[in-house]
């Protein structure tokens, strides 16, 4: 094996600690979400509750438009993911295969964009949203989400396109395929796995976005999960609904836990392709 070996017991303990470190906050929130209010507010803390309850989950769906939050997040994330693939794939292909003047500059700009904190964009976007009357419309999120995912989409797909054997494209060109036909009929079908990888990353980023969702959407029924959960409040400042907040956290993270479990390999390959090779 490549790197130096560590004694076995030490390694096992470290591994156990890493797992605990990664899972503990989520598991604690999961446990809280099923505890009764009495157990939640018990001192000292209750680690093994005798009674579990679904009341906090029920409250989310009866007192709040919680289905809306979930569907809003899912809808906005799905549409913007498809759009960023649709716009990003052709752009990535061009940057991978066609020599253009100014190409290096474009790539440098795209790389810089992957580092952009969204706080630098929100004022300008807020003005655009108001100018085009997009406040409290899904487009106010779909457009920026598509855009903030484009740089990573382009970088990751470009690195996948570059790995394709160019002979196939040369042969297709001899057979009379033009650039567009080649992209649609030959290149994209070969890169479906890469599209899935990139799509998963884009979906995660869109699902998790907070600042734009907080600023551009104020209507309760149109909010996305992160904002809606962060704004769950009680009747007064002193009455914080810990149970429902925990339940909302669990419901909002569940889809992503599913994605990670199903696609961990792809997520890792996408992340490394985007960051290391870009």
């Amino acid at each position, binding site marked *: 094996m490549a790197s130096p070996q560590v004694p076995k017991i030490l390694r096992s303990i470290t591994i156990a600690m890493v*797992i605990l470190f990664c899972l503990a906050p989520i598991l604690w929130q999961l446990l809280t979400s099923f505890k009764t209010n009495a157990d939640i507010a018990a001192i000292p803390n209750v680690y093994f509750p005798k009674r579990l309850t679904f009341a906090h989950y029920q409250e989310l769906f009866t007192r709040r438009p919680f289905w809306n939050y979930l569907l809003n997040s899912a809808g906005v994330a799905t549409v913007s993911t498809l759009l960023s693939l649709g716009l990003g794939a052709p752009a990535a292909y061009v940057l991978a295969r066609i020599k253009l003047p100014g190409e290096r500059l474009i790539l440098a700009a795209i790389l810089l964009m992957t580092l952009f904190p969204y706080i630098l964009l929100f004022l*300008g976007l807020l003005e655009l949203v108001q100018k085009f009357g997009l406040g409290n419309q899904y487009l106010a999120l779909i457009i920026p989400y598509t855009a903030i995912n484009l740089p990573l989409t382009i970088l990751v797909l470009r690195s996948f396109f570059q790995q394709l054997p160019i002979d196939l494209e040369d042969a297709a060109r001899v057979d009379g395929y033009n650039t567009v036909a080649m992209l649609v009929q030959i290149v994209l079908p070969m890169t479906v796995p890469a599209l899935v990888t990139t799509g998963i990353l884009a979906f995660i980023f869109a699902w998790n976005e907070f600042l734009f969702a907080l600023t551009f959407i104020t209507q309760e029924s149109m909010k996305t999960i992160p904002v809606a959960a*962060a704004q769950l409040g009680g009747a007064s400042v002193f009455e914080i609904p*810990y149970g429902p907040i925990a339940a909302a956290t669990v419901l909002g993270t569940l889809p992503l836990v599913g994605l990670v479990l199903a696609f961990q390999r792809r997520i890792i390959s996408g992340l490394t392709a985007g960051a290391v090779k870009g």
Partner: protein
Amino acid sequence: MMDSQSAKIPTIVQRERRIGWLLLAPALLLLTLVFAYPILRAIGQSLFTQNLGTELQPQFSGLANYARMAVDSRFWQSLSNSAGFTIVSVAIELILGMGIALLLNQSFCGRGIVRTIAILPWALPTALIALAWTWIFNDQFGIVNDLLMRMGIMRQEMNWLGDPTLAMVALIVADVWKTTPFISILLLAGLQSIPGDLYEAHAIDGASPWQSFWAITLPLLMPQILIAALFRFAQAFGIFDLVTVMTGGGPGGATEMVSLYVYATIMRYLDFGYGSALVVVTFLILVIAVTVITVLVQRLRRNLA
């Protein structure tokens, strides 16, 4: 005659380029609208005073906003908060991330499961994770207080999010938890590209694993380390959601980051001119830092090649 003909019938290269630009155009247009426009707009708007004092009408005021920033102690406080948070959390994340990457690079049973678990924190929504950490650091019912008291490390509960220093510590812990996996994934990819014979040769020369780490692993991994540092620097410096949810910048502005100050200036005080100037300065700081790190990366790559 020749000229007009070659102008009419584009060469293959010209045609290909034209199609290339056409395919690029939609993406570039959207990126310009969402990334370039807000920055250019902020640069323009920062030269105007536009706030409640001017009834939200823009009045040209030159560099007045920038002059105000120089003496705005709240701005400098937020800048130092952001810098402190960024430096400490990125440093811890790099060291921990390196450790986890070295661990994951070894073969042991269940490695795939550990890797899956390790990317979970990275994938989950920061705002929701912030809620979980707020609950963990709760002063009355929080598990941190409970565990530390059970272990005898603390005598009585601490008000983690209500104390200036402890609130910063809590934020850093949450950020380290959330982003260390990302770093270890990037570093792991780098580790796996280092050929194993290098270590074997070094070991035959009598080097210890610790010496190999310093002589081989670290230098060869430097590009990945710097890239991870670059990504994390930018994200940590612009952090908004974690801090907004966990402390809201409190107590008493002790954890107010630049991003929160920008947001408050614009959304709460409706001071668009000054908010724009804050955006411009934050952007410049970021660009300078990114340029410095990128130059370092390229120089390193050249040295290694």
